[in-house]
């Protein structure tokens, strides 16, 4: 076994001002008093695991929660402790972006910000229980650019209860007006059992058929505006892919720090406890936090490479995924015009990409 050299680092900052109805991430609402203790633990975990990191880390990603909701002083401590990397991304909610925050990020090595815009329509932001107003997004982008951050990504949601096709088009138009380097567009997922589904499930059911068409609308508009549809839900200007995420999609190893964070290294995946108290307590003792571990055998890894690789617009080398591939299904999908086997690997056609989930399930041996 070669010495582990993880080149992708994820850091989880779970705190949020408010838990949005549709959210299913590991988040901790409020608890300002605990930010310091959490960051202590986080940095302790970083020190414990630092030997796993490559000399030159390629990407760092601070996700949440709302990383920018973290007490500025604590956030600064985190940023200062992080290894240097070619791409350092922080997730931010628009309303948390102040001139001071933009400065703080830009001065401490952050060169990419992913803004959770979701929509530019107040009514839909209300439905989503987002605190930001449409103006906040525009202001945040300007502040970040002014502070020197040149790589900005916007998250958009479509399929919000009540949203029509023209509402979706309007949101995309607003987003494009800000010339982001990158866009992530997701269909709103109403997870069964969430407060959100309880409140809006029926309306979403009614909209279901229309929502199917929104994805086509999003792709057509963005591609028509010069963005590359390089991943199922991601679009970028030339050379502006999310390098950190590309690491996941290409099956690279990664280290995750913080509560609920997942790491995958040499065929072993582990997930830290999502419980704040248990995490902080363990690291205060100098111990690793409680973790769930999963052994990934060769077949499983091949299946994951297939699942992740087919999200991208570049061919997937067949040699890597052969054991996971149902060749009969592949032949069937080829005849349906959904997948293509080429000299340089396996790719999905445009229609195949719209149906990527079903197509991938089909292709799994």
């Amino acid at each position, binding site marked *: 076994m070669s010495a582990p050299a993880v080149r992708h680092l994820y850091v989880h900052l779970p705190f949020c001002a408010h838990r949005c109805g549709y959210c299913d991430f590991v988040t901790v609402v409020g608890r300002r008093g605990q930010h310091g203790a959490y960051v202590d633990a986080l940095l302790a975990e970083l020190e414990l695991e630092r030997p796993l990191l490559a000399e030159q880390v390629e990407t760092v990603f601070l996700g949440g929660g709302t990383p920018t909701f973290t007490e500025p002083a604590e956030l600064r401590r985190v940023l200062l402790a992080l290894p240097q990397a070619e791409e350092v991304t922080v997730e931010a909610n628009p309303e948390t972006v102040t001139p001071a925050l933009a400065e703080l990020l830009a001065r401490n090595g952050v060169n990419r910000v992913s803004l959770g815009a979701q929509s530019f329509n107040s009514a839909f932001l209300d439905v989503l229980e987002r605190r930001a107003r449409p103006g906040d997004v525009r202001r945040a982008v300007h502040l970040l650019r002014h502070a020197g951050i040149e790589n900005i990504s916007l998250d958009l949601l479509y399929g919000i209860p009540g949203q029509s096709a023209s509402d979706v088009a309007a949101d995309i138009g607003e987003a494009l007006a800000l010339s982001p380097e990158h866009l992530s567009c997701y*269909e709103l997922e109403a997870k069964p059992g969430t407060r959100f589904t309880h409140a809006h499930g029926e309306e979403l059911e009614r909209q279901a058929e229309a929502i199917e068409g929104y994805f086509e609308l999003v792709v057509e508009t963005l591609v028509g505006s010069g963005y590359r549809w390089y991943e199922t839900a991601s679009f970028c200007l030339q050379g502006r892919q999310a390098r950190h995420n590309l690491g*996941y999609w290409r099956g690279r190893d990664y280290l995750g720090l913080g509560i609920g964070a*997942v790491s*995958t290294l040499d065929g072993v995946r582990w997930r830290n406890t999502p419980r704040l108290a248990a995490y902080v307590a363990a690291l205060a003792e100098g111990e690793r936090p409680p973790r769930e571990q999963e052994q990934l055998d060769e077949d499983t890894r091949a299946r994951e490479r297939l*699942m*992740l690789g087919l999200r991208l617009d570049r061919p997937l080398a067949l040699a890597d995924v052969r054991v996971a591939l149902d060749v009969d299904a592949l032949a069937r999908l080829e005849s349906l015009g959904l997948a293509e086997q080429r000299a340089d690997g396996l790719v999905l056609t445009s229609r195949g990409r*719209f149906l*990527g989930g*079903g197509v991938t399930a089909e292709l799994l041996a």
Partner: protein
Amino acid sequence: MSLDRIRNFSIVAHIDHGKSTLADRILELTQTLSQREMREQVLDSMELERERGITIKAQAVRVAWRGHQLNLIDTPGHVDFTYEVSRALQACEGALLVVDAAQGIEAQTLANAYLAIENGLEIVPVVNKIDLPQADPERTAAEVGDLVGEDEARILRISAKTGEGIDTVLDAVVARIPPPQGDPEAPARALVFDSSYDQYRGVVAFVRMVDGSFRTRERLRALAAGTRFEAEELGFFSPFRSPTETLEAGEVGYVVTGLKDVSRLRVGDTLTADERPAREPLPGYKDVKPTVFAGLFPTDSDDYPEVRDALEKLKLNDASLFYEPETSQALGFGFRCGFLGLLHMEIVRERLEREFDLDLLVTAPNVAYRALTKAGEELEVHNPADMPPEVEQVEEPYIRASTIVPKEYVGSVMELNNDRRGRFHHMEYLSEERVLLAFDLPLAEIVYDYYDQLKSRTRGYASFDYDVLGFEPGELVRVDVLLAGEPVDALSLIVHREGAYARGRALVERLRVEIPRQLFDVPVQAAIGSRVIARETIKAKRKDVLAKCYGGDITRKRKLLERQKKGKKRMKQVGSVEIPQEAFLAVLNLDGERK
């Protein structure tokens, strides 16, 4: 025992008129069973029989009454088992015709009475349930008197429930039913009127000795099948097996044959002594032919061997069950089974699921067809998918349906039968209130949701029975269902040309709703030959993606896709279309749900 001390009789009745309760009371009064051994419906040994209050297998029990040996042969009452009933009746000289004092004569009362009369039996009419507040014993006695031509005064009035009048029934059996005729000295002849299978001792034949006698260990021969075996044990039922040394002319009992294959000794065959054989078999042996067919498929294709074993075992006790392996493109490996009727089918299915713990998918039942091909070849078709596309002529089985209803429902029954291609035969007032309607109908029309319709249109007041008449040619066509151009063999059906369009339309619409959208457009068509009569399209999905997939999501998303793939493997595949089991079931149930 001398012949004049023996009486052999059975009890016939419409369902729920109290046949089994009367049998229970007879066993009690004759002290055949102790209080401790007594339980309800003692002769119905199958769990299913007791639960549904019906008799499926014939049973024979010997009781003693005032110096006489009475052999009571309990018979199934339902039309599906007419053949077994008629065999059982052949073993008797008389029959108790039991009629509910509140309900009066019902369709099976008639069918059974006629069957008994045809077999030359002395009928002793019994009006039962006289204890019920709504009982009308006089009116019922008048109806029954008319039916069998008996003086009303001689019609017994009893309550099997309270035990009132049971002794008069037994006295009447002795006084009115003639003793068996037979020659104790002639070469032995015994009628096999039923059989059961004992896993250790093989086929146990239920027999009525007509001439001569059998000894234990004697070599016997079945005249029709030609099978030879040794009588390992002889005896009678009390109602448990009680061994005896001999079975004498006139007696009813059993023979343990040791045969491990039920097909070697069929109900209706005649047993004789191998050393001094009788020349002539007893009359009445007939090969029963199944009238209703359905495909039976394991829900999980891995269960195929279990289904095969279960059918084999069931067949041991039910020689009328027919099955052969069938391969359906859509449903995989299974069996095409033939049944005596719908109740028989339902019972077989229920026994398979219950006694053998199997999950089954049963295709819509169809009847047997006779096809004459253009080449002049005659075919018997048990599966619509096997019907050749080009035929000269198709014949289907017809029945004569007898329905008894209160007179206000005559119009509804007429309408239903006319809708079902029925031909009026005759109508008869049984009393001022109740009418018998006889119609000739294609059996296929009964198989398709007839009972439910009859029930709802007559508010449950109709009683129904039928006799199979034979085959008649009809304007019949095969309707195929095609998914993305591929025929779905399990959904083919044969229908009258006039009904083809509506049935095709209904099937196609149901499939469009039930089959989930696929990765491509799926045309659903119903066709007669190459002519499409109905068409729908299941529109392709436009989007099917897992929205986000980052480091923390990978395991969950992978498992999601793996489950999805596993689910697909359980689906039935027709060409490139995946059909979930549930969709198939819903479509196959269409027949049961026609509104």
